[in-house]
């Protein structure tokens, strides 16, 4: 049976603070739970990431959370690449070897709220934020570390993310990127 999806008017987004009810949050991933409960406020204090909570109106319960920061996509050994069939002799005049991006540092949903579209609403919020950020600072991509399961990677791919990583079996997370238009 498919769970009923949250409509945007049934929820709100708020930035994590010392009064947020984070101890009730419980996703299927312990690392994501621990980050929210133990680290997220400190990341915020140190300007390492801002955590947004998607909450249900009425119950104020946290459905999902999202942590955003700036990141970059780095390509190695730039002199050995080819562009349009020729070696990049004049690289990096033509291209930098890092591409600035908005980074989804964490994205998680409470166990009891899975399948109701909460993470998708926060992903849309991240895309909307990225579109806004890139009007003011260099930012061509939205990046995410997807946990290396076909379900999670498939979820990001259905939203338009790509990955060129072939080491899915070995890594715990897979870097995925979404090109901003």
């Amino acid at each position, binding site marked *: 049976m498919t769970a009923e999806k949250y409509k945007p008017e049934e929820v709100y987004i708020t930035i994590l603070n010392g009064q947020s009810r984070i101890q009730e949050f419980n996703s299927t991933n312990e690392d994501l739970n621990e980050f929210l409960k133990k680290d997220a406020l400190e990341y915020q204090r140190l300007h390492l990431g801002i955590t947004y909570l998607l909450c249900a*109106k009425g119950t104020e319960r946290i459905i999902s959370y999202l942590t955003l*920061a700036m990141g970059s996509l780095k390509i190695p050994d730039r002199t050995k690449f080819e562009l349009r069939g020729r070696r990049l002799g004049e690289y990096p005049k033509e*291209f930098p070897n890092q591409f600035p991006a908005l980074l989804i540092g964490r994205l998680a949903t409470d166990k009891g709220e899975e399948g109701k579209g909460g993470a998708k609403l926060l992903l849309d919020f991240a895309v909307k934020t990225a579109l806004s950020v890139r009007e003011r600072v260099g930012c061509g991509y939205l990046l995410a570390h997807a946990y290396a399961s076909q379900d999670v990677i498939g979820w990001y791919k259905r939203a338009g993310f790509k990955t*060129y990583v072939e080491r899915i079996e070995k890594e715990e997370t897979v870097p995925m990127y979404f*090109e901003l238009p």
Partner: protein
Amino acid sequence: MAKPIKYVFELTKEEAQRFLDDVLNPKPNPARDATIERARRLDIEMR
């Protein structure tokens, strides 16, 4: 402490070549376009 956020994505040479090919010759991505349209219309209360 949870695992730290990784701020830099380092691609291997082969992955980066595919990425660069795509940057210079982008292919249609209807899933991305749909997400962007949805994101632009998103209207959620901020508190």
